[in-house]
């Protein structure tokens, strides 16, 4: 069973980054640049979101001999979840705290 998602400020940042262009596939490094999160923080978040089917993943075919590049995009459920929860700025954290969401 997948445990409930912990909505940390970093997770909200990632969801915000996806909300900028919800239909587009994104690379891990691009999300890192947009959010300022390091790979050690970003990838566990991406894995958790993908485990909960909030993100779909794909491999971009590249030239032979090079590893494929991983792509991420919000699923319809993920988009709805992101719109419900991803509130930008400090006010967002306060609203989440009032809602009882663990951050």
């Amino acid at each position: 069973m997948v445990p409930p998602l912990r909505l940390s400020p970093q997770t909200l940042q990632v969801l915000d980054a996806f909300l900028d262009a919800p239909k587009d596939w994104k690379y891990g490094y691009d999300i890192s640049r947009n959010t300022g999160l390091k790979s050690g923080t970003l990838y566990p978040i991406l894995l958790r979101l993908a485990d909960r089917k909030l993100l779909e993943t794909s491999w971009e075919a590249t030239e032979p001999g090079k590893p494929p590049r991983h792509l991420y995009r919000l699923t319809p459920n993920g988009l709805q979840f992101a719109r419900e929860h991803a509130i930008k700025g400090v006010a967002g954290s306060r609203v989440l705290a009032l809602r009882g969401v663990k951050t």
Partner: protein
Amino acid sequence: MLRELDFIESDWASLMWALGGTTAILRHSIASTARSWVTKQVDRRGEWTPKNVGRKAAGLVSGVVISAGVLAFSILGLARLPSVLFPARNFEQLPWLGWLPVLVIPEGVFVIAALVLWRKRRDVARGIVLSGVTLAVHVIVHVTTHR
């Protein structure tokens, strides 16, 4: 994660990216291994009911009894077999022959029996392994103290 390294501008940033990615993979694999181990332990908690413990103990004891029977048969029966089959030959001149029925044959039988029974009757197999280890330790202690 790995492919992203080709798109990072500086070497230092690439190194930090790779280290972060490795840490993330390590944390993820440790966490998933720990989670599956905990789930397994929780699932196995149901095995330790009095009925199951009794069944396990009975299996273990029967393994030990079977091993004792094999050992007794080997020592009492097989040890005398060469002299009975070939009375003309003097087997007492071959002291190593004495180890066959006391150690080699029983241990061989124990190993084969434990391997065969391990999947279907694990508790009996454990009893046999326990007997085999006890016999081996006994022989080692005997040999080292009676030199």
